């Protein structure tokens, strides 16, 4: 199985990764190899086997509906790359 360039571009777009051409060639090669590895799964005897998303058969623990958090905006401002008037800034989004 070979990853086509268009497919790699689609993946890079979905994952929002800017790939320089040199890196692209290498990653395409690595992905091909990896797809070969995971192709082994195709022969597994999985008919009727329930998929397993979590290690244990337990339900999520829930929390009561209570406000337990206070204003953290000062801490957020301390780590944000760009923040102004309490808002995180991004390049202008046009809808």
């Amino acid at each position, binding site marked *: 199985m070979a990853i086509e360039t268009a497919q790699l571009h689609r993946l890079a777009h979905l994952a929002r990764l800017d790939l320089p051409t040199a890196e692209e060639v290498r990653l395409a090669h690595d992905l091909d190899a990896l797809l070969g590895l995971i192709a082994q799964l195709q022969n597994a005897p999985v008919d009727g086997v329930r998929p397993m998303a979590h290690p244990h058969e337990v339900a999520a623990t829930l929390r009561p509906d209570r406000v337990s958090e206070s204003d953290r905006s000062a801490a*957020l401002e301390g780590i944000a790359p760009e923040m102004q008037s309490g808002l995180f800034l991004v390049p*202008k989004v046009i809808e």
Partner: protein
Amino acid sequence: MSDWQAVIGLEIHVQLSTQSKLFSGASTAYGAEPNTQASFVDVALPGTLPVPNVDAIRKAAMFGLAVGADVAAESIFARKNYFYPDSPKGYQISQYERPIVAGGTVLARLDDGREITVQLTRAHLEEDAGKSVHDAFHAASGIDLNRAGTPLIEVVSEPVMHSSAEAVAYMKAVHRLVRWLGICDGNLQEGSFRCDANVSVHKPGTPFGTRCEIKNVNSFRFVEKAIDYEIERQIRAIENGETIVQETRLYDAAANKTRTMRSKEDAEDYRYFPDPDLPPIRIAPAEFEALRAALPELPDARRARYIDALGLPPYDADKLTEDRATSDYFEAVLGALPGQAKLAANWVNGELAAALNESQIEITASRIGAVDLAALLARIVDGTISGKIAKDVFAAMWAGEGSADAIIDAKGLRQISDTGAIAQMLDDVLAQFPEQVAKYRGGDAKLFQFLVGQAMKATKGKANPAQVNELLRERLDASR
């Protein structure tokens, strides 16, 4: 054009009225300063984890029970992966396979009295996104994550509606229901209740047309207008030989038109998969029983009871079941004044509704409590005062002057029902207006009402009107 049929399905986003968010302890209160209600979980700091709010799950289950749906004993949260600044984790926690609510129906009544039953596909729990602020900065958009993580249920209908009127009637029915259940404040301006509409057109008997999704419409009127515009646009396009492309469109209220937001080619591949941070959500049988027990009598059931058992006209029943607080108020009046449903309905829908509207207050904050109103109405029933005098007493009660009985006594409003006194008073009136009496006897029947009016005036309205009528007629007709 008349042979085209529109096919409409709605996705309604219902914000659940919890104190805290779906997965964090941050407040859901509306209108705070930007990012002051964004916890570390909401901002998706590295290492933070979601923990589900039990009350959001209960409210979603309550909705499912109310629409007669299957409420899942085990449902699963999934990640919907996409990049957008108002989605801080790069995915939204939603439900995909195994939502909490599957199926169900909602009965909607149109303005013309027609009823439609709308099938629901599902209702799933998910977290709301934050908000982008586009006009605050020159070259940048600002991101406020206060709303991020607010619990929602997305109520998805089957595509079974055929006009904007049906769609709006359905949307209103859902709106009434979620407020009735107390799971949503229903505030459309604040975005607590929003709607996406899927619209296509076809000719009956042919396959469905390509649908367009109109995003984020937040008023009943705009939903109606957006759907009407979209139906017309699609029909016009097809008749002009164009093909409809599947796309997401935005409704521009100012221009009253919809426009392309993104086409299917730009569509994200959401890569849904079960959220590994969240094991399945289980609702134990005992919890189901508790929820069922807590479910109030629903508006449709109440409306039917008002018509069938209480004998109210459908109009009154509709008005009384528009919201639960009004209906509960009516129930309380009736509880204190059994057997007087029509009288109680008239007053709740009439005098009380007008007073509330004038004072701009909710019925739950009414200046006259249900039991006090019942005490007033009891004085009409037992003949102490007339309905007309009762309106004055109501006004005095509204002004805070005291209870009905106290006001009646203080103002001397007790109705005169003493036959002798009324007869004496009538004799005086007849003596005062000999000309009119003569004309009446000469055949001018209209003058009867004039003489009644004079009698009521003479007693400041306190004479029992029925007795006045009876005794006056006796006097005039006897000696003719």
